[in-house]
């Protein structure tokens, strides 16, 4: 597989996505919720009566940080779903399939085109989130909680693995359905494992610490590799050309 060819597909898709406004709504809305709404809500809770106890604040911030993983699953859905089905709608997939690109190069390019914007957005959002949270909690905690190694592990290891999982799943779904809406709807099934992690954390079944985050990331990375090979194995040019209506 030639990475340069996959990169070509990705850069072409970046140019296309830039002009597709409907792709950008979820990419913009969800991060705003994380970066702005959470610090605002916490600030509101802090200003009422005596505010929240420090322990509760830390619990809440750990729970909030898991929304980065849920966001990581949500944000690339629209891009990844568009990547195959959108080409089908524009009927631009056949000429691409007729070129000397391999299935792996096409799929890796599609995955990169969804992965990189998502990571850029999420890292930008995390900076705003950390700054906002620190401003809100400094008075109670007496120190700046962020950045810390736990969130660093979550952002630098778990988040890319979660984004990749969501993308690979969406691409597999996209190559099996006929319209962007169905692709996004079925692709949203990938939320469930991440919501499960969030619920497990809020109910104290698992603790959000570096060790647990690394274990989860390891599982996700293994799933990423498996899904990539599954996506290339189930990407059937013939089916796409002859059965898509």
């Amino acid at each position, binding site marked *: 597989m030639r990475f340069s060819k996959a990169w*070509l597909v990705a850069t*072409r898709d970046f140019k296309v996505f830039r002009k597709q406004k409907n792709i950008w709504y979820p990419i913009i809305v969800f991060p705003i919720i994380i970066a702005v709404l959470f610090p605002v809500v916490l600030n509101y809770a802090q200003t009422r009566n005596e505010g929240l106890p420090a322990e509760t604040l830390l619990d809440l911030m750990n729970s909030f940080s898991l929304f980065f993983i849920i966001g990581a699953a949500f944000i690339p859905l629209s891009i990844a779903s568009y990547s195959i089905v959108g080409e089908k709608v*524009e009927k631009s997939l*056949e*000429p691409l399939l007729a*070129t*000397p*690109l391999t299935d792996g190069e096409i799929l890796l390019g599609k995955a990169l085109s969804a992965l990189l914007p998502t990571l850029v957005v999420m890292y930008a959002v995390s900076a705003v989130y950390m700054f906002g949270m620190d401003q809100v909690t400094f008075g109670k905690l007496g120190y700046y909680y962020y950045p810390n190694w736990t969130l660093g592990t979550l952002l630098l290891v778990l988040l890319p693995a979660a984004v990749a999982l969501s993308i690979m799943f969406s691409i597999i779904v996209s190559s099996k359905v006929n319209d962007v809406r169905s692709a996004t709807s079925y692709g949203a099934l990938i939320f469930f494992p991440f919501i499960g992690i969030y619920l497990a954390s809020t109910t104290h079944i698992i603790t959000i610490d570096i060790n647990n985050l690394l274990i989860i990331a390891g599982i996700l990375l293994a799933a990423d590799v498996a899904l990539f090979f599954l996506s290339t194995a189930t990407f059937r040019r013939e089916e796409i*050309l*002859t059965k898509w209506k």
Partner: protein
Amino acid sequence: MIDTEGLTKKFGDLTAVDDLTLHIDDGEIFGFLGPNGAGKTTTIRMLCCLISKTSGTATISGYEIGNKADSLKIRKLIGLVPDNVGLSEHLTAYDNLDFFGKIYDCTAGQRKDNIKRLLEMLGLWEKRNVLAGAYSKGMKQKLVIARALIHDPQILILDEPTANLDPEASKTVREFILQLKSEKKTIFLNTHNLDEAQRICDRVGIMNTQLKAIGKPQDLAKTVNGRRTVITIEQVSNAVIAALKKLSLKNLTADSNTLTFNVADPDKENWPAVEAIVQAGGHIRTVNVVGSDLEGTYLKLVRSEA
């Protein structure tokens, strides 16, 4: 250049292409004619290694279709104009071509030169920075042809390139195809347009799941339909008709002063007919041989299937 032997494609119980055997030479324009559902696009997709064959063999420049290692080499040799334009509508014409040039490993210089040359030839250079989505149908079709040629392929495969185009745009595309012939490119042209095939193709094949006939357009018309002889005489009499009937002429028709019949070889078959008319007392004014056209041939072959 392109060879197939017993090439067959089945989709479940449906046979789309049945036992297709043909040979297309270097530098030839080959027209592939047939009604909808005749297997033309399926044949193209097999030749471009987009779908698998069920049985038979096919090679392009010696590379075997169905061999995974050869598939990428075949795709490099071919430029495809699919039946759907399939442009990235949110990219400019220039960016569409540049992307495909990069895929085919054209250098920056080659891409720049080829894009300029092709867009100028097709009259699109001035609109190179316009989004492809804003192009008219005819302009899009031209752009797709330019895209197929961006890597200067030896073989160009076109699937209905003039379908849905207005006459002027169709003419431009036809002239461009003829221009490519002068560059010794091998062209495989799927078309419904019989007039177009007759005008630009060196040979045509008439397909209806199976290849029904193949040859030069004019020869094919002769072979399949033969020709018709039209003789005008002063007065068609019963004696003249009786004399001609003895010759067992095919499809003999007569009115007050015209006799018409089919002939396979006018030079051999017309003379006995003329002699018979004269001996039966007929006064001949004119003898004409009318050639059958490709449309007649096509309809005869396609309808015989129904």
